[in-house]
């Protein structure tokens, strides 16, 4: 277990190192920090002096080490636009994005398991065929289009649901304001959550169904039947546990995709999260903010992937000894 943990953490650090190199390369090539600092009306001599003071004339390695050192201390530079530390800007936007991801995850987990299991157990039922038909339509509609069509129907045509922003939010702690405390907050988060879940949900339904159907064909399920075990126990203990192993792995990969989709969802709903902020930063060429976003998102990816791998190791007894000890 310990060896496995060390191995995973080491790999996570290696990936973070690569991300920081990319981020650093972007920082060095994108925009001109001097112009942001002092404007263009400064003589060449003063510029050179400033460059020296800022360390822009140091070697690549020196500059990178300074960048990495600062980053490790939480200093990711100052946003040109907000005139605030870039990390603070992002952390302020983070809770909005996380609540959105949370809402979507609830929808995905809450629906994909029952739907996937049902369609696997009763593949020929009419309801299963309807679910499978809808799922293929689901994966064919891009997230942003789901969002737009929902706005068109529920906001523009019927006027039932608000189409942008977070609505009434309640302060919880630190930078964290929540949508889940007021009715208005709930109304605002419903459509963005559904939109964000809209492409993952059918994907997971199909994945769970496919894995489950394969497991149901397995010899150990047949053996469980031969032992006279109740079918519900066979479905939800024998089969589902084996089904979820590959699903967890895919789930880990999909977390990354989910973060990407937050950018789309937040843009359509003008949701004040870090995805929306990132696109604005791109349009303003706010380099420190772009770089900080890259590092924060990279960090989230690496951490969640590592955690998912560890969970997989804990759930799967075969990994426990065979790989973790090694």
């Amino acid at each position, binding site marked *: 277990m310990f060896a496995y943990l060390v191995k995973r953490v080491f790999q996570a650090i290696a990936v973070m190192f690569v991300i920081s190199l990319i981020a650093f390369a972007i920082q060095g090539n994108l925009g001109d920090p001097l112009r942001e600092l002092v404007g263009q009306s400064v003589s060449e001599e003063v510029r050179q002096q400033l460059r020296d003071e800022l360390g822009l004339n140091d070697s690549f390695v020196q500059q990178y080490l300074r960048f990495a050192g600062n980053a490790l201390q939480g200093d990711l530079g100052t946003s040109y636009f907000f005139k605030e530390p870039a990390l603070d800007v992002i952390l302020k936007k983070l809770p909005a994005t996380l609540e959105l991801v949370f809402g979507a995850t609830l929808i995905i987990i809450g629906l994909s398991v029952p739907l996937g299991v049902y369609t696997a157990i009763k593949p020929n039922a009419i309801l299963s065929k309807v679910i499978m038909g809808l799922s293929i339509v689901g994966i064919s509609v891009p997230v942003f289009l789901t969002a737009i069509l929902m706005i068109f129907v529920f906001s523009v045509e019927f006027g039932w649901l608000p189409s942008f922003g977070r609505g009434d939010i309640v302060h919880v702690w630190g930078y964290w304001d929540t949508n889940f405390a007021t009715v208005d907050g709930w109304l605002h988060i419903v459509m963005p959550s559904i939109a964000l879940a809209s492409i993952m949900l059918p994907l997971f339904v199909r994945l769970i169904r496919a894995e489950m159907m394969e497991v149901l*064909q*397995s*010899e*150990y*399920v*047949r*053996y*469980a*039947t*031969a*032992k*006279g*075990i*109740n*079918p519900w*126990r066979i479905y939800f*203990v*024998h089969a589902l*546990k*084996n089904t979820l*192993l590959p699903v967890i792995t895919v789930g880990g990969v999909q977390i990354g995709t989910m973060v990407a989709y937050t950018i789309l969802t937040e843009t359509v709903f003008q949701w004040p999260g870090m995805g929306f902020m990132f696109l604005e930063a791109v349009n303003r060429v706010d380099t420190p903010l772009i770089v900080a976003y890259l590092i924060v998102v990279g960090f989230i990816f690496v951490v969640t992937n590592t955690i998912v791998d560890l969970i997989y190791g804990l*759930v*799967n*007894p*075969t990994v*426990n*000894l*065979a790989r973790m000890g090694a």
Partner: protein
Amino acid sequence: MSLLSVRDLTVKFAMRDQTVTALNGISFDLAKGERLGIVGESGAGKSITGFSLLNLLSRPGYIDNGQILFDGEDVVKMNDQQLRKVRGNRMAMIFQDPMVTLNPVLTIGQQMVETLRAHRKLSVEEARQIAVVKLREVYINSPEERLDQYPHELSGGMRQRIIIAIALLLDPQLIIADEPTTALDVTIQADIMELLLELCQSNQVGLILITHDLGVVSQMTERTLVMYAGRIIESGRTRSIINDPQHPYTQGLINALPQQTLPGEQLRQIPGNMPTLAQVPNGCAFNPRCTFATDTCRSQIPQISHYGEVEVACHEVQRLQSEQAREEEKA
């Protein structure tokens, strides 16, 4: 009254473009505590017979016709709930490959306890105690620790012992063992068979042993069925069948045994292959491989009937006997 009475069992498989018959009117009986061997090459329908007895055929296979009377009740007519009460409880099954039979994500204990609790009102603790006793019976050492281990932590032989223990958990009347040692290392095959025999004898459990190995059958069973292309072609006391086989196919099987061959001599395999279910020849299914085949054999399906000490389905059995007698006289 016999424990098991199979009458005219017919099993079909609905394939994409046609329906094939896998079992064709199988009938046999099994007395309480009796041990029966079912032999034949792969594809003869042995395993399908085994699974049918528990009504465990999975799509696209289904029982088309016939009766399987187990203790007087017809398994074919049972609903799911009735079947569940029989399976694992009164009739247990040992599968072929212990590496894939146990669920990889559940501990041995979980898989034993759930079996007991599916059929009897027991607490988990009581069930574990019974499990420990049964694991001891199959010579698993430190059984308490094994209960908390996962299948992948145990060897194939150990797993098959555990599966035998699971089969014995509820003191069934009948155990169906489908090639229980084929997937195991040759060195431990005999141990497992010996264990199985010992436990069946001491517990008065009936056994149906499905195998392609006539040698094993002769050591393990009292009666034998020989199957070919979905039919029983010869049946009777194991000793009679081994010592004096009547059907040319059974003779071929026995001649092919390594024990029948002198050192350095080539094994005498039966030429040709078992037909696939979709292309069973007309008449006796064995006729293309049979040296005695006549026109009758190629057109009419032989019925099974008494001949000497066994029952055999062969048109030419009498001619065969007289020819053999003549050859022996010459010798």
